[in-house]
């Protein structure tokens, strides 16, 4: 008996992206397997967000193919997607519950189902009494909790989190980690887009490290470390980018 090979959920083939004369991604190839937690790493401006936006059909790739379950993603795809973008926000002048029900319904939940799920979630994160409060009356941390709820409310089988801990306080960081673990336990595929190596080391099965739109490293965490003399991912990141990357000196794309 041979062990069944995991099949890819996401396939990126010969993907290139140009904005004007600037090449942001240059012939990128990688796969994300079903059920794994995958780290899409790189410094600011390395092309992480561009890759995700192209994968989700927000950008049209200049060249190449980006597939989820063997076809380009559209909102009518069979895959249930949870996406927390790097640029995030909600309808500020609407109530928490109205916004959650709206997104839940757009994500193909029945309105009653979306309402019930939302109230349970708000109870879980201590915001039940804020259900009818306008979003802009919530604190930044409370808004983050609502944002996370909106991201996962359709029980996504593919959860893409772009810089998920950006701006998160420790409480919400903990909540996020719990949510990721729950989704992992549920068999979901999780993609973490980040430049925080400790999160990757702790959560990811495999990773790709982007530099100037190309893969500087790709494989399991162990394979990548082995290829770099068993250095920590932090050290590998510094080796690839140099110290200036840590000072945030690169342009974001």
């Amino acid at each position, binding site marked *: 008996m041979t062990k069944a090979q995991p099949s890819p959920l996401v396939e990126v083939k010969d993907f290139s992206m140009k904005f004007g004369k600037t090449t942001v991604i240059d012939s990128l190839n990688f796969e994300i397997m079903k059920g794994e937690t995958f780290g899409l790493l790189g410094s600011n401006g390395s092309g992480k967000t561009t890759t995700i*936006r192209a994968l*989700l*059909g*927000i950008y*049209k790739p200049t060249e190449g193919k980006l597939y989820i379950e063997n076809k380009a*993603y*559209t*909102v*009518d*795809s*069979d895959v249930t*997607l949870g*996406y927390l*973008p790097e*640029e*995030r*926000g*909600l*309808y*500020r*002048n*609407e109530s928490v519950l*109205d916004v959650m029900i*709206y*997104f839940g*319904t*757009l*994500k*193909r*939940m*029945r309105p009653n*189902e979306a309402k019930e799920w939302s109230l349970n979630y708000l109870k879980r994160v201590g915001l039940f009494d804020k259900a009818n409060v306008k979003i802009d009356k919530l604190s930044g941390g409370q808004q983050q909790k609502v944002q996370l709820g*909106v*991201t996962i409310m359709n029980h996504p089988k593919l959860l893409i989190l772009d810089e998920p801990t950006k701006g998160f306080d420790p409480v919400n960081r903990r909540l996020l980690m719990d949510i990721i673990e729950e989704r992992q336990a549920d068999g979901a595929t999780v993609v973490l887009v980040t430049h925080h190596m400790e999160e990757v080391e702790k959560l990811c099965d495999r990773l790709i490290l982007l530099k100037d739109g190309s893969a500087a490293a790709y494989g399991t965490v162990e394979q990548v470390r082995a290829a770099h003399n068993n250095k920590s991912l932090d050290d590998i990141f510094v080796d690839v980018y140099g110290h200036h990357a840590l000072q945030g000196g690169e342009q974001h794309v």
Partner: protein
Amino acid sequence: MRYKGESNMFNIGTVIGFEIKRTLKKKSFWIGALSVPALLIGVVFIIWLSNKSASETSDQFKNERYSLVVLDESERVNPALLSQFGAQTVENKQKGIDQVESGTTDAFFYYPNDVAENPVEAYAKDTGMFENSKYQAVAEMLLEESVAATVNPADREVLRGNVAYETTTYRDGEEYNPLLHMIAPGIFLVLFYFLIAMFGSQMLTSTTEEKENRVIEMLLTTIEAKSLIVGKIIALILLAFIQALVVILPILVLYLLFKDQLNFSLPVELSAIPIDGERMALGALIFIGSYGLFTGLLVAIGAAVPTAKEANGFLGVVFMLLFAPLYAVSLIISSPDSLAVQILSYFPLTAPIPLLLRNAAGTLPLSEGLVAAAILAVCAVIAMWVAIRLFRYGAIEYSNRLSFKTLFK
């Protein structure tokens, strides 16, 4: 969970519901909608109060009794009426004035020999700015009633201008009233003006909120840009109808409740308004094309700029083009074939008002109307396409305007 086959239509429905619900919760919507009937109620109340007061005052003044002397050189005032009023006569004008000055009588009326040439003069004790009008009211009543009694009732009504006139005109051998025929197709012009004036700004900013709130990426991965835009546009149309109802219903109720007191009736019977099928169909086509074009244009502008504030800067330009033909209404109606009117009718951004007005006035030939409606429809489709594309690809340009080049990439 639903399934993908039903998701597009359902999502449009979800967007419509969300947009309508949140707009109806805004105070500004209700202030805007209720201010028109509130203003009308206020105006109607003032008119009613004023009419009531004027009528009461007039009756009161006519029946006012005060000591009076009269000198009637015109010999038109009926002495019986004067005696009913308790008026005395004097021999000369100065004597009458002296009596008023000395306070022995309240008022003196002098009717000159030729009342058509010279004014009737009233000399009286001052009783205040408003009360003083009672003297003229009585002087006028005495003369008018006296003269009216000398002619037959029909002549009296002619002299009083109480005669109704009816003009019947014909076109192509059939009875034709141009004003009456304007009413039904003119509804499209009113509707278009109302929709654009009330919701232009909202159309323009309907997509900037998603940008400003950074919610666009989450939306674009859950709903087609096309469905979102279509849902928003349908919601705007439905909201316009809701707003129209909010404006019209109180006015209708007010009319039905107070039409007798207001002494107001509709100038034409509703059942007498002719419905010209051809003109109605053409009006509907022009209306749909015009509304589609301007909605697409406003949404496209909103999608291309990063903030609502910046988007609003363009509203003035669009409105200027659209409403400029209103300054040429008389030209549009009187000289529909002039070059200026033709240009205004065929240039899509100025076309809606001239076309709808000419169609209502019956000066828009069917062939010309169909060509213009087709131009509007094509431009509307292009504007919608541009709007959806700009929204689709410009939405995540959070702080930049989208370049024209990007649109066609």
